[in-house]
């Protein structure tokens, strides 16, 4: 008999958490889904109905400068021994957090609700972020030049009727 998969879903503001949990439950009906919510989040809420367990983080918010707090969070996530760690957004910080969680698989929820696998290795995540950053910088520089050198004001737009 296969062991029940343990899936951690890390709460972030800005997404409908209940909807994410519901979809995940549909996709993984047999898994043990753990909602990881910030400190102070009302655990009894019906929006957590699709989670089998709810774990509160030690703090309501984490800052990049709060190294001790972040270490505590990583320790807490590793202690839970997730098979799969799911983040709600594909942001660099959340990617690194998922890599640090030591889950065997990591995924983010795409904007259309699909689960998209991401690299769980720290080195791979950082390399990915750097590459994206370089490509993004180049595109931004190109657009910046157009916006700041080619003005609409100098175009031959006729005045309105």
């Amino acid at each position: 008999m296969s062991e029940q998969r343990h899936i951690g879903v890390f709460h972030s503001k800005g997404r409908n958490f209940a909807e994410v949990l519901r979809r995940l439950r549909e996709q993984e009906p047999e898994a043990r889904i753990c909602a990881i919510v910030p400190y102070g989040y009302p655990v009894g809420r019906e929006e957590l109905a699709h989670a089998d367990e709810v774990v509160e983080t030690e703090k309501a918010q984490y800052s990049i400068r709060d190294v001790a707090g972040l270490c505590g969070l990583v320790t807490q996530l590793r202690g839970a021994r997730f098979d799969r760690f799911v983040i709600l957004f594909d942001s660099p910080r959340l990617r690194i957090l998922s890599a640090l969680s030591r889950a065997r698989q990591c995924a983010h929820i795409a904007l259309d609700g699909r689960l998209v696998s991401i690299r769980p290795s720290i080195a791979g995540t950082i390399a990915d972020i750097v590459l994206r950053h370089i490509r993004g910088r180049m595109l931004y520089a190109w657009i910046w030049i157009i916006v700041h050198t080619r003005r609409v004001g100098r175009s031959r737009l006729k005045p309105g009727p």
Partner: protein
Amino acid sequence: MTARKRIAFVDLYFCWPPHGGADVDLYHVIRGVQDLDYDVHLFVSNCDETFERGTITPSELPFPATRVDFERREITPDVLPERIRDAVDAWKPDAVFLAHGFFLKPYVAKALAHHPTISRYYAYELTCPRDNRLFREGVTCPNSYLATPDVCRSCALDLMKGDIVHERLAPGSEEYVAARAYAPAYHRLVIETLRAFRAIVASNGFHKQQMDPFNDHVRVIPGGVDVASFPCEPPADKARKVILMTGRAEDPAKGMQTLYDAGERLAATRNDFEIRVTHSDYAIGNDWFKAIGWHGHEGIMRLYQESDICVFPPLWQEPFGLVAVEAMASGRPVCASRVGGLQDIVVDGETGFLFDSGDAAGLAERLAQLLDAPELRRRMGAAGRERAEAEYDWTRLIPKHYGPLLEEVTR
């Protein structure tokens, strides 16, 4: 016997179940226009690889619909408008109603320019390429992409920077890049299409004013609600009256801080009220201020019924203010900022009170007046329900506004 006129509705984002007010609005407008004895057909662009765009099952909609499927790399000005045009042309409409769309909408408008076209704007997508909100640093932005394009291009790029640099393409920024909305040629296209529309529908007078110099046929049509679906029972008598703010309270433009400040003033002298806001940060709050999280439609209707007074204090020029109409349909008095569409919805002194946006003292004063006068609350609530039925119920709104509009455009 004359053939029924055919109206093609084109939407680049429509999803059902809906994602927001624009989807709900279009759904009811199409159904209403169908009832006005027009042949209708909805054309939706769909792409599964990005954010939810055009997620519909045509057979489940109460009107005929076509989903035009795209791959992510096809969401471009070269491919998307052409494919939409082919689908619409094959249906041979008498007029096109161009609904929701952001940066690619002008390209689609150009591709469909051989049909008489009505363009509907739900927010400030035409005048604010930054985020469609015309709201910066806590106040209404004095600029407009139509009048000050270079200022607005630079401002839009500032906001998009993070998304572009990190290749974190969200709905707005992905289309911004794909549509080359940063280029001067894009501004020329926007103006050209704006002038060519047979009619333009804005959500409020403020937005209409911005478009008036470019087209003589801009009109304001409000959104609507299905009033009958909102229960309208008198609130239960309770020691602490419930003041409710619904909508995206996390958004600073929605003005929750003004309500909090007003509550603080009230709490200094009385404790017979509780403020509830649909904010998902449950950590905020105190004895008289509660964050109650996001609620679906059923939950929202229950919240209105549990409330005694509803407050909508936006700081920006709220395009319409559907939540205020919902509260009125639920028979609750409404206190709202004197901005955007809200100042047309709430009749000051009759269905509630208007106050200057950001004026916490003014809001506190009006809330105190309502808290002290149950009869005034009841009277204003009843007047609000009456106004919602007369002005904002779909069954009346469609014949009143869309009937003459379509008659004119298809003549």
